[in-house]
């Protein structure tokens, strides 16, 4: 049995998606003609500003495309479904957004992405564009804390890119932008749970199997196996299991502030997400942690995967200011 999808020839799906994106958001985005997988913000890049390029495999929409715009990322390099883009679109992005101050590459920590983006960075250097890279590693489940740098980047990208994008938009120096990006990543913690698989457009087959009554905690946003498989539990119990691991690492003090993201992996409904968000608020209230702001919805998906993730972004004055900094993207606005 094949998963049903509203698609045409899967070989063209990324080009067709991008055509639809450009049709919907002509005021925000344009495509580089010679490198159509390079999507650039109409009003973002400018002279004297550090450029911010994000990117990775497709299938996580609105990540990455949706976060390109004034105040956030200047460009995104778009790969096939769950596959890093090759170096070419990243290089094209770097050239398009370089304002003479250097370009920051930010993306989730996956072997494929690192190889491709590093190749692009080397090529950019040959064109006298300085590239620095900050990998996102917010997925608490993907490696123990001692190996934080080995962790994957998942939904927490949202906060990390937001902070870095704000720093760039405020025309901070390359050093400062890089520092802020690293700090934002260090202050961001995500835990996810999957209830059901998704299918790649080419295969239309579930990318993993899970029992009819099972869930898997820590499963990656490409279906990579997680840390604990077990019987599905109630929303509150699952929320507690995810939060416990986050809070354990973050170890907030009374009066600390956080921003919250309750994210759908695809088919988990807003109704469920808000039920989870309710529990997050209860738990944070219990330990006297203030919620500065919350986002609830599909921000970093895995096609139609069922499940959700919770991200806490541990704020200080600087990160709060960056979070509040306005941005205007194709699929996201703030401030």
């Amino acid at each position: 049995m094949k998963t049903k999808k509203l698609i045409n020839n899967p070989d063209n799906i990324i080009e067709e998606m991008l055509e639809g994106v450009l049709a919907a958001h002509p005021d925000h985005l344009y495509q580089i003609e010679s490198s159509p997988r390079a999507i650039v913000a109409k009003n973002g890049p400018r002279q004297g500003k550090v450029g911010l390029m994000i990117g990775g495999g497709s299938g996580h929409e609105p990540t990455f495309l949706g976060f390109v715009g004034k105040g956030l990322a200047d460009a995104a390099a778009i790969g096939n479904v769950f596959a890093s883009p090759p170096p070419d679109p990243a290089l094209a992005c770097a050239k398009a957004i370089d304002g003479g101050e250097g370009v920051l590459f930010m993306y989730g920590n996956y072997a494929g992405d690192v190889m491709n983006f590093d190749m692009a960075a080397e090529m950019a250097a040959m064109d006298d564009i300085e590239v620095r890279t900050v990998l996102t590693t917010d997925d608490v489940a993907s490696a123990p804390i001692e190996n934080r740098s080995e962790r994957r980047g998942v939904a927490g990208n949202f906060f990390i890119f937001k902070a870095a994008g704000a720093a760039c938009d405020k025309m901070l120096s390359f050093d400062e932008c890089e520092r802020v990006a690293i700090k934002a990543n260090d202050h961001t913690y995500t835990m996810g749970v999957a209830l059901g698989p998704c299918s790649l457009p080419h295969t239309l087959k579930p990318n993993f199997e899970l029992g009819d009554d099972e869930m898997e905690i820590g499963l990656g946003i490409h279906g990579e196996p997680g840390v604990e498989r077990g019987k599905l539990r109630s929303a509150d119990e699952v929320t507690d299991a995810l939060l416990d691991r986050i809070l354990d690492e973050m170890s907030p003090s009374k009066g600390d502030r956080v921003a919250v993201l309750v994210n759908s992996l695809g088919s988990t409904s807003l109704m469920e997400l808000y039920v989870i968000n309710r529990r997050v608020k209860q738990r944070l209230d219990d330990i006297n942690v203030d919620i500065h702001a919350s986002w609830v919805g599909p921000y970093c998906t895995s096609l139609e995967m069922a499940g959700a993730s919770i991200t806490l972004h541990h704020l200080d004055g600087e990160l709060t200011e960056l979070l509040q900094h306005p941005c205007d993207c194709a699929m996201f606005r703030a401030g």
Partner: protein
Amino acid sequence: MNSLSSEQLVAMFNAMADSMKSSIDHLCELDGAIGDADHGVTMSLGFEAVRGALAELDPQQAPPTVVFNTAAKSFLAAVGASAGPLYATAFMRAATAVKEQETLDAAAMAKVVEAMVDGIRHRGKAEAGDKTMLDAWIPAAQAANQAPADTSLPELMRQVAQAANAGAESTIGMQAKKGRSAKLGARSVGHMDAGAASTALLLNAASQFVVTTFGSH
């Protein structure tokens, strides 16, 4: 002695493309067990792009080094992923290794395989035993390297493919250390690595092509 012309090298790439195309679901399933279920799609898209780019070449004008360089560029541009940089680097190294050659005999093919391994190792920084495609490529290169000087091209390729098969099998028992499946730790044991599996399929298709072209000796 048997020696592949550029035209035959292109045909060998097409045979590998056929093999990837018919293995999409199988390789995705392997990748799904411990990775992100896309390896079959990536390899097939990549080799189809190679097929397309090589069809544009005039093999009379294009020595093997150009074929390999063309393959490198088209593969990488089409797919990215992990496989893209790894195979692109491998093909570029192969192109350098056969720069002077008009045709590829057994010795040249041995150099190709060894150069590819160097490229993959350089790009991915993985080691033998990390449960990656290297665990199929390294034994393949060893087989090529250890073959007596008078080994025929079909025989060489047969040994290379066999070594890759055994290498791919050996990844079942390994714990992943590089790539997406590395996060898995002990749970990766018991599954064949998708990249090692596709390596074995590629080298078998190449070997089969050579045997069909030249007979088995």
